């Protein structure tokens, strides 16, 4: 091996990141968790929008008193919020 080849080999190894880097791994897993959270929020928002569109499209066919309408809206909101909380609280990654 020539001197230049030895020098190149030494310099090439010199620039390597550490073989084990717990902080890097943690950062990657944190990004994954944030992405999972965004997916869930997007799914909930999409479901809410779909329900709103459905309700709006059915509205002309329904004869609903104002009071019943308020109850329906309130119950729908509670159900949707409850489902949102249960979905977001569910463990996203298996422990193993």
């Amino acid at each position, binding site marked *: 091996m020539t001197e*230049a080849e030895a020098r*190149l080999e030494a310099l090439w190894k010199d*620039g*390597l990141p550490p073989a084990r880097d717990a902080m*890097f791994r943690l*950062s*990657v897993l944190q990004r994954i968790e944030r992405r999972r959270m965004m997916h869930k929020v997007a799914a909930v928002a999409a479901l809410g929008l779909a329900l709103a569109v459905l309700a709006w499209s059915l509205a002309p066919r329904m004869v609903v008193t104002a009071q019943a309408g308020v109850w329906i809206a309130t119950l729908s909101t509670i159900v949707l919020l409850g489902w949102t909380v249960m979905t977001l609280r569910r463990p996203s*990654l298996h422990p193993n």
Partner: protein
Amino acid sequence: MTNEADAALVAAARAGASAAFGALVDRHQQAVRAFLRRLAFDPAEADDLAQETFLAAWERLSSFREQASVRSWLCGIAWKKAKGARRSWFRGAARDGAYEAQAALERPECGSPEDRLALEKALSGLPLEQRACVALCLGGELSHADAALALGLPLGTVKSHVTRGRARLLDLLGGRP
């Protein structure tokens, strides 16, 4: 071909096991980060892109085919990320070249600062594809065949790039006293 340990980790990660994906990160982060650093010169930006690479790999686990090695698949994702970030990235790398030159002088690793600067300057003088081939193959991180898969280049092109790039680097380093 992917080895058995990687195949088992990929299968477990597909099932949602975070520890398995973390183990994949541990096994391959050094190679991916080194590849991106040799392309981009700025360790912080390269590491950020490396994290994005693993995030993309997690999202695409279902599309991984066992005909390729996990490392070449990851480097392929990293290569696409690097090309996508190229415009602002390499413009920034040129601007920050002076900073990197000073940082190389101050880094307390083996090898003289002048040699490290010479290596970085030599790498920056290589065409992008040639630099990528050298970055992947020179230290033996990937075989020529795996590098060809990762970069989407013909095998002969990769071999040629590595040979010429290595000769260029040796020429620049060998010319120094």
